[in-house]
Structures are given as structure tokens and as C-alpha cells.
């Protein structure tokens, strides 16, 4: 699932695409700052910021004290003073000390100031499981941010989107929660970094066309859903896969058009199903596609259980088989 190869396209990992995108942002706008724990000499624990402090200096690529609320709170102050901070939270499970600053301050200041204050802050969070990590290193907190008015929430599924969506995030005048699917960091794809505009415009994208059922996902689950669609095709089922890309806002128009064609919808995400993004999508698609639906909208995701020890995560995460099980149930209805 890569963009068509063009003259300027290079094959790279999703992780490299993020690195190049941050490099572009630093080079293009002197107001851009990177902040986070271990992002300087170490280049971040995943190396997303590798080499950036060396090239842009420690005034622009700032190693911070180990204090997430402090990082986001000072990023707000820096944004108020005219900078555009891009913050790295080291792991999904470590964002919660900053949750207060994100929810009570970052998300609301534009509205409460009636537009006088803009906070162009990007918060990058490596998220999701399937890497065999210890506790607090595999979580999917997207709903906790999507529920908060004032935040934009997005998650790329492939290297090209990683590059371009991060460009979109750093250029946005709104705060953006940018969720990086860490288990896809080493997936490779074509990225046209010399293009002047992203190859696929904003909004959801149909990454595989099909006629029997729509599979909707974002971030790490898009690849799983494409695998599921390939497996289903061997059994004669033609699935459409929609990469939502953005979780706030959600491009319902693209999704509704897809479901209008297929009549069936399965939503997959790693986050718990209960009150997850799938619940909102199911409700709205049902509202808009009630007479086109041939089956109830089904959801596949994590359980209402703390993220398990890693030896159990294959059972917790919605893998290929659980996605196909939901597909079968929807097709049988």
C-alpha cells in the first residue's frame, strides 16, 4: 500500500518518514521546536528524532526533564510566545501525567479566548501493541483524546501518510494528538518527499476497493485489515478497506459512501471496543445508512481489561482471525 512511484519518491520505513518529516518542519519554519525525553543525543528511544539535535541544535531539539505534564505545560507557554512545539511522549502509557494539561489547558484555550490564542502544539505518541513490550508500553488511548473538543487526533498507517500527515499536523493551528503505530515503524513504502502536496488529500481513504463489506480502521490495524481482505478474497469475498487516518474529525462522508455501496461495516481497532471509536462510528453510520445496511455494524478490538502481559497480547489484540470472524458474522446476517 504505497503511493505510485514517481521521480521524487524514495522507499523508506514509516519511522524514517517521520524523521524526514520532522527535519522538513524544522528546516522550513524557525518557530518549530522539538521537545521530549531522550530525543536529543539519543534520537528518541525509537530514533524518530535521530540526528535532528546534531543538525538543528539543542535550542530547537530540546531534551526535557522527565516530566510529561511539564513538557506539555511548557510547550503551551512556548506556543503562547510564538513557537510551534512538537512534543514527543515516549510511550502511550506515559501520556497520562500530561493528560490534565492536554485536556484542561491545551484543548480549551482557543475556545475560551474566543480565537485570540492559538496553540499549534503537536503531541507525538508511539502507541499500540504487538511488540512484546512490558506494561504501559502498548496502549491505545485515542478515544480519550478524540472525546475532547479542541483536539485533533490522527494516526497514519503507512510511510507516505506518516510523512504527509505529520506535515499537516505541524502546519495546523490546532493542537494535534499524533499517534504513531509503533509496530509499523519498520514497515516500508514509497514517500515522495519532494512533492509540494500530499499524494492523497486529507480525509479517509479507500485503500482497497470492494463490494461485499467495508472494513474501517486506522493506524496499525489498516495493514491487518488489508491482510484480512486478501484472505477473504480467497474465499470469494470482496472487501473494501477504508483507512480513516483521522479520528477527530472522522471523515464520515467517505465512510458512508463506502457503506452505501457494500451495505456492511466492520470496524477494527486495538483500543477496547467499549466506548471506542468503533462505537461512535457504528452509531453514526447506522443513523446515516440505516436503509442501506444489510447487517448490524460490528466492532472488533481490545477487551474491557487492562492491556495484558505481552505473552497474552495476541489474544487481546484483534488479529487477522478475529477480524475475519467479524466479517463472516456480518456477511452471514
Amino acid at each position: 500500500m504505497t503511493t505510485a512511484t514517481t521521480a521524487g519518491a524514495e522507499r523508506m520505513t514509516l519511522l524514517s518518514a517521520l524523521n524526514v518529516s520532522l527535519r522538513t518542519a524544522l528546516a522550513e519554519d524557525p518557530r518549530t521546536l522539538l521537545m521530549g525525553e531522550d530525543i536529543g543525543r539519543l534520537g528518541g528511544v525509537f530514533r524518530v528524532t535521530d540526528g535532528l539535535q546534531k543538525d538543528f541544535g539543542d535550542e530547537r531539539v530540546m531534551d526535557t526533564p522527565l516530566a510529561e505534564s511539564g513538557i506539555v505545560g511548557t510547550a503551551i507557554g512556548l506556543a503562547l510566545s510564538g513557537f510551534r512545539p512538537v512534543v514527543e511522549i515516549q510511550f502511550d502509557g506515559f501520556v497520562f501525567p500530561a493528560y490534565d494539561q492536554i485536556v484542561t489547558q491545551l484543548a480549551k484555550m482557543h475556545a475560551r479566548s474566543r480565537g485570540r490564542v492559538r496553540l499549534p502544539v503537536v503531541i507525538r505518541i508511539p502507541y499500540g501493541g504487538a511488540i512484546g513490550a512490558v506494561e504501559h508500553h502498548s496502549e491505545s488511548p485515542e478515544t480519550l483524546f478524540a472525546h475532547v473538543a479542541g483536539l485533533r487526533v490522527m494516526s497514519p498507517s503507512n510511510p507516505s501518510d506518516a510523512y504527509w500527515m505529520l506535515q499537516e499536523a505541524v502546519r495546523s493551528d490546532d493542537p494535534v494528538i499524533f499517534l504513531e503505530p509503533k509496530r509499523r515503524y519498520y514497515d516500508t513504502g514509497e514517500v515522495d518527499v519532494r512533492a509540494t502536496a500530499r499524494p492523497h488529500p486529507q480525509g479517509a481513504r479507500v485503500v482497497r476497493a470492494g463490494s461485499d463489506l467495508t472494513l474501517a480502521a486506522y493506524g496499525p490495524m489498516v495493514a491487518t485489515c488489508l491482510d484480512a481482505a486478501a484472505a477473504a478474497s480467497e474465499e470469494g469475498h470482496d472487501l473494501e478497506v477504508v483507512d480513516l487516518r483521522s479520528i477527530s474529525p472522522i471523515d464520515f462522508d467517505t465512510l458512508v459512501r463506502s457503506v452505501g455501496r457494500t451495505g456492511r461495516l466492520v470496524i477494527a481497532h486495538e483500543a477496547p471496543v467499549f466506548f471506542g471509536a468503533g462505537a461512535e462510528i457504528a452509531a453514526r453510520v447506522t443513523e446515516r445508512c440505516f436503509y442501506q445496511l444489510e447487517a448490524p455494524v460490528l466492532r472488533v478490538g481490545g477487551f474491557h481489561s487492562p492491556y495484558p502481559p505481552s505473552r497474552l497480547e495476541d489474544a487481546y489484540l484483534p488479529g487477522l482471525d478475529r477480524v475475519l470472524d467479524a466479517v463472516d458474522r456480518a456477511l452471514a446476517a
Partner: protein
Amino acid sequence: MSDDTVRLLTPEGVRVEHPEYALDATPEELRSLYRDMALARRFDAEGVTLQRQGELGLWPSLLGQEAAQVGSVRALRDDDHAFPSYREHAVAMGRGLDPLALMRLFRGVDNGDWDPEEHHFHLYTLVIGSQTLHATGYAMGLAKKGAESAVVGYFGDGATAQGDVSEAFNFAAVYGAPVVFFCQNNQWAISESNERQSRVPLYRRAQGFGFPGVRVDGNDVLATLAVTRRALERARQGEGPTLIEAFTYRMGAHTTSDDPTRYRDTAEVESWRAKDPLLRLERLLRAEGSADDAFFAETEAAGEVLATRVRTAVRALSVPGTDHLFDHVYAESHALVDEERAAFDVYQASFVQEV
């Protein structure tokens, strides 16, 4: 009050020397400081009255803290910045903000929507301690831009127990940010006294973070001005943060929703009444012959003019249109907000009656 408290004016209105801090103030400056405190007190009293009349939803009174606020804000230059908590009415006035803007917030017609860059007075912050990090980040930004200005972050004694305040101290220290942490220790965090917030005097916290802390008599406007001025100079010269603990007292309730008689006794309140910040400056002004009855009468009249103006203006404030629900949630278009706005417009239009 301990011996290491900086004081330049006693409760009896007598100027005293301090080995480290001095303040040369002309009679005109002294009168001006008095006037600012008196206007703030009168404005604040109007806030309490308007709340009692049902015109405001809530009012946090600054009564007793006039010297801490007026003295500190007077030390700021135009290019400096103040990040307030929610009780800094005199700081707002000192920065030139129309105090009516504060009442708009507490009337519930907006959430405090003044332009922070107009007077370099940032938005009120109701979540305790959050703004100390914003002040620190702003100061870090000023330093990055090479600006020769500084930031004062205001907070209370209760806030010192918040993690954000400790994180702000630490960030400011490690980056050498040009920020002054101005803690108004008014002795009470709603009903909880200092003993429930800290085991050490608050100003000593700074030492653990690697920067100076100083306790000042917060009811002494001259000492507060001198101490804040010195801290701001340090900040501007790249010497990093300072913590100032202004030792003062909240004479009124925490807010108009609070009943302080449930948790503190009259004797304590009366002992602080004897340390009143306005009274001591009035005594000095009269003793030095720097102000006469006419000045005090004139100041009182100016307070009445201010009170009348805000009272009239508050009562005339209109309820914002429902567009405000959707207008500024995001800086850029957001599909969900657009959809909900459109649906709400249709819903509202359904009530329009045909004539």
C-alpha cells in the same frame, strides 16, 4: 512572621531598613501605589456585592492581598508578562486590563477571553498551578528569542502542593528561564491551612530546585515591589528564576461560595486586620505629609466611579449568541463541529413561528 521576612514598612506605617533590599519612592509613587490598592479593593468589594445580588455567579475576593499584587505588578516593565491564577484582580488592573473583563468571566458570559498579548496579562487559570508551567514555557520562549523581558507566574500556597508547580520550578531551573514565581501565601487553601500543604516554609522550596527563594511581607507594598523588582532584574540578566513567597492573608472567604467561619477563628482574622496593607501606607503618607484628607477623599471618589461603571456595565452585559458554542472550538474547520452547528441551526429554526 520569621526574621528572614523582607519588610520595609511596618504595620504602624514606619519605614524600616533592610540589609539587602531598599526602595526609593517619591511621594507621588507612594500615593500612586496607595491609589492602585484602594481602587482594587473597591473594585473587589463590588465583585462581592454583585455576586450577592445575583449578578455574578462567583467572585474570588482579593481582600487583604492588595499590597502583594500591586507591589509585584508595579515591578513589571511593559514588555514583561504576567500569568495569573484567578484572584489577581489588582494585577490585571496594574497591567491596564479593563477589570470589567474579569467580571465577564464570573458572570458567565465568557470564560475570560481578553487578548493576553494586549496587556501582557495572560488568561485566568482555574486549574490550580497549571499556569506556572505556561509562565515557564513563555519565559523559555522569550529567552530563545533573545528578548530582554521576563515573566511573573502567580499562584497561591495551595498550588505549591501541585505537581505542576514543582515541575515548573524544575523546568525553570534547568533551562535558566527568566521567570519569577510569585506565591501569594494567604494562609488558607479554601479550608486547609499551610500545615496541610507543606512541611517547610514555602520560600525554602526554591533551594531544593537550585534557585533563590525569598519571603516578603506581602502586606507591605514597598517590600513586595523591591523584592519583585530585584527578582525580575535577575531574570532579565540571565540568572534564572526566583521564588517569592508573599506572606499575606485572605481576609475574606475563598470565594463567595465559601464560609470561612467554619474553619478559622475571629482572633486570627483580627490579628491580620491590624496588618492591613492600605492602612499602613496611609499612616506613612500622613506621617510624612505626603497625602492629606483631600487625597484620600479623592481616591475614595475614584473608587466609587469605578464601582459604578462596572456595576452598570455588568448589568448590561448580554448573553452571548449560541454561535459561541461552535465558533472557536478549533482554529481550522472541523467536520464534527460544522455538522453539529448546522443541525443545531435547523433545530433552532424549527421554533420560528409564522406571523
